[in-house]
């Protein structure tokens, strides 16, 4: 039967009863109604479901909700802070790094993790870091551009808001 879990979701404490087999992505989408996290496959290939757990990007379709117990979860909904777009979001729009938008939240979360790790990645590093995210619309050229633009912008502004719970 159900198990009780407690976790921080985008900065807020959440407690819930979940079936042990419930996938984290379903917990996020169906129970928390945070529908920015998407599902695009059943074999953990597409990356549409990527969120951060304790600051590390995970494919939430390959994690059980119970495994998130006691941890900090960050989804795309937390990227913009205080009504201000995160530089990654702004750059995706500016560089036309999205079309249908379905892969976009996962792409941005992967990009976020990359830039936290490596503030100034070159094209090859970006392409490698995003190789777990499939996009069928953009051909990736403008996504790479967006990540580079975000990196430049983040270096410029020291006071970039860091999403709640994204770790440090």
């Amino acid at each position, binding site marked *: 039967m159900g198990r009780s879990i407690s976790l921080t979701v985008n900065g807020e404490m959440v407690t819930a009863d979940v079936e042990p087999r419930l996938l984290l992505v379903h917990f996020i989408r169906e129970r928390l109604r945070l529908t*920015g996290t998407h599902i695009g496959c059943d*074999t953990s290939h597409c990356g*549409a479901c990527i969120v951060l757990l304790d600051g590390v990007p995970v494919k939430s379709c390959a994690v059980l909700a119970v495994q998130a117990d006691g941890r900090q979860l960050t989804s795309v909904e937390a990227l913009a802070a205080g009504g201000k*777009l995160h530089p990654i*979001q702004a750059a995706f729009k500016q560089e*036309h790094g999205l079309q*249908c938008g379905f892969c976009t939240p996962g792409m941005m979360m992967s990009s976020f993790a990359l830039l936290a790790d490596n503030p100034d990645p070159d094209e090859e590093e970006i392409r490698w870091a995003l190789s777990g995210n499939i996009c069928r*619309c953009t*051909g990736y050229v403008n996504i790479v551009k967006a990540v580079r633009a975000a990196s430049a912008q983040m270096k410029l502004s020291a006071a970039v808001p860091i999403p709640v719970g994204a770790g440090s």
Partner: protein
Amino acid sequence: MATETPLKGFIGESIKRKEDDRFIQGKGNYVDDIVLPGMLHMSILRSPFAHARIKSIKADAAQAVPGVVAVVTGDLLAQHKLAWMPTLSGDTQAVLATDKVRFQGQEVACVIATDPYVARDAAQLIEVDYDVLPAVVDPYQALEPGAPLVRDEKEGQSSNHIYHWEAGDKAKTEQAFARAERVVSLETFYPRCHPSPVETCGIVADISPVTGNATIYMTSQAPHAHRTLFAIVAGLPEEKIRILSPDIGGGFGNKVPIYPGYVVATAASLLLGKPVKWVEDRSENLISTGFARDYHMKGELAVTNDGRMLGLRVKMLSDNGAFYADAQPSKFRAGLFHIVTGSYDIPAAHVETDGAYTNKAPGGVAYRCSFRVTEASYLIERLVETAAIDLKMDPAELRSKNFIRPEQFPYTSATGFDYDSGQYEKALRLALEKAGYDELRKEQAEKRKRGELMGIGLASFTEVVGAGPGKHFDIAGLRMFDSAELRVHPTGKAILKLGVKSQGQGHETTFAQIVTEELGIPAVDVMVQEGDTDNTPYGLGTYASRSTPVGGAATAMVSRKLRDKAKKIAAHLLEASEADIDFDHGKFFVQGAPSKSKTIQEIAFAAYTNLPDGMEAGLEGVTYYDPPNFTYPFGTYLVVVDIDRGTGQAKVRRMIAVDDCGVRINPMIVEGQIHGGLAEGFGIAFMQLITFDEEGNCLGSNFTDYLLPTSWETPNFETYETVTPSPHHPIGAKGIGESATVGSPAAFVNAVIDAVAHLGIKNIDMPVTSDKIWSALHEVGAAE
């Protein structure tokens, strides 16, 4: 961060997309995001066999699972005359199997439950007793006498042959071949692949038991056509059906057909009086919904020894799977494949195609393609490459020698297409120049001396997009026009409602810009609404690159209608005669006295407050646009590859794309479309393959087997343009969504062949994987 732009959005301005804000903040609204009170969930049980007779279906155990509300079988649907449905090609398709299953993954039964996990569990408890039959997976074998009969339920169907179709002039073509100094031939297979948008297909059907109103949220590229088909298939009154196609996570043709899951979910909602949601998983998407291509083609080109093309002859066999469900204009059994003469002035051509049933999933959708143009373009561009090898001519020179020349337009092709405009030589020259073609050829020669393999591939494609004209082109009888309704409010802001439906192409921005150009209202003030059949005018939807050619033309025409009325109001306000009013960039002014002017906003206000006597109030209109012709985008793609003799791996070093899609409304969006199409073309050429073993098991049923290009393997693209407006389109635009997928596979494969042709290798069928290249090299003793 400031994202405002000072640009108003006139044609040619790359304003940022209006739709992006919701997507980058996780606030898109896709079908799977929709949750209604009391909503039930559906799961489909599918056939594990490619061909088997159903002896019995036992659902008691499934029915007994707590949370299960209903189990739907074919027999239950048959009681409501819903076990079969019509396809877009005039055939029938089983909704849920009653007699036999005809492909692996076919829909057999559905469970409706309060929870999606429960629905899935219960579906596994349904016991189906099958009598397995021999399967036929090869279309040539399917046509042999004695082959297992796929469609034994169809009256008068005694073989697996579906259709025979011809285009062009056979006798004239035979004469051309009789005169030819040489015949170049190529047999090639364009394998089955799948569009695979990242979002799969889904529906939430909500039929009220009280009012009978059917509200259907659906991943639909063609909501209006789907509403009409729902009315016909399910017998629901059309005015009570409202199809809502919310944000769509990519379509590429996959979301054009009506699938059995949609029908069962709708029927279940009707029977149960509750909303029912069905969202397929990725395997379901790959094994059962609209595949593309699967054409076996043989092309022959009659040429002179100095490379002049005299005639083209094509024989083709189409593998349609178990149901003939191609999504295409109904009179054209092989879509627009007969555009196969491409960019070349070939005086005679003849095309013969046959279709065959096999025990495979149905489909034949136009995957980022205008109805089989992709296969046609691939064949002719590969054939030209083969001719260059045979004639020992430079492939660029051979193309150049045979291009339809600018002064020949409008040009009627040997198979009856009326090309609107083109400058093929110009696009080719630009690609060669940007690539540094002569240098590349030198480098190739030097490398070859050292035993290194480098190839340069070209494709100078011509597309045909923007169906109608409605006189000749229809989908399930519905003429292929499209529509736009525009209303300007008193404050000068507008709402534009369209019959087409974006799946990521940026309609909310592009179409607003057409209004900006024609009326001067800034794009930011024009709200674009699509995908709601109650609130948009009837249209045939978005596929085959038809939105800009048809819906865009409708938008321009309705804007002009409003502009005519605005002129009258301006004359009234300026106390001048209407004939003396000129319009420029949103301002109406008296000729010769530009200071006497009114803005479109002032006129909009007057349309509700201060009208000339006798004029109807308001500023709004609707236009249904039936295009007089197709548009013909074109371009040249050039690919450079290096091949490793040890592994057979082909590495794309450069990809240069010159596209001409006429006038570009938002160049940023156009370029994004080209990038996306090139990546899909790259995937098709090198990785994307749906295939089957001899028992009909699908190999390619998930992303472990069906390989899609990621950012890692996708090359960078260098894009350039030439601009040749369409003479008949109101703003000269031609459409761009598909050119790159149509044109690029041949360029990639030609590059690989160019690297190995001197070793005697003239063809490798797609996908050109490293093992296939290595095997070909090994066979001629050139592998390391």
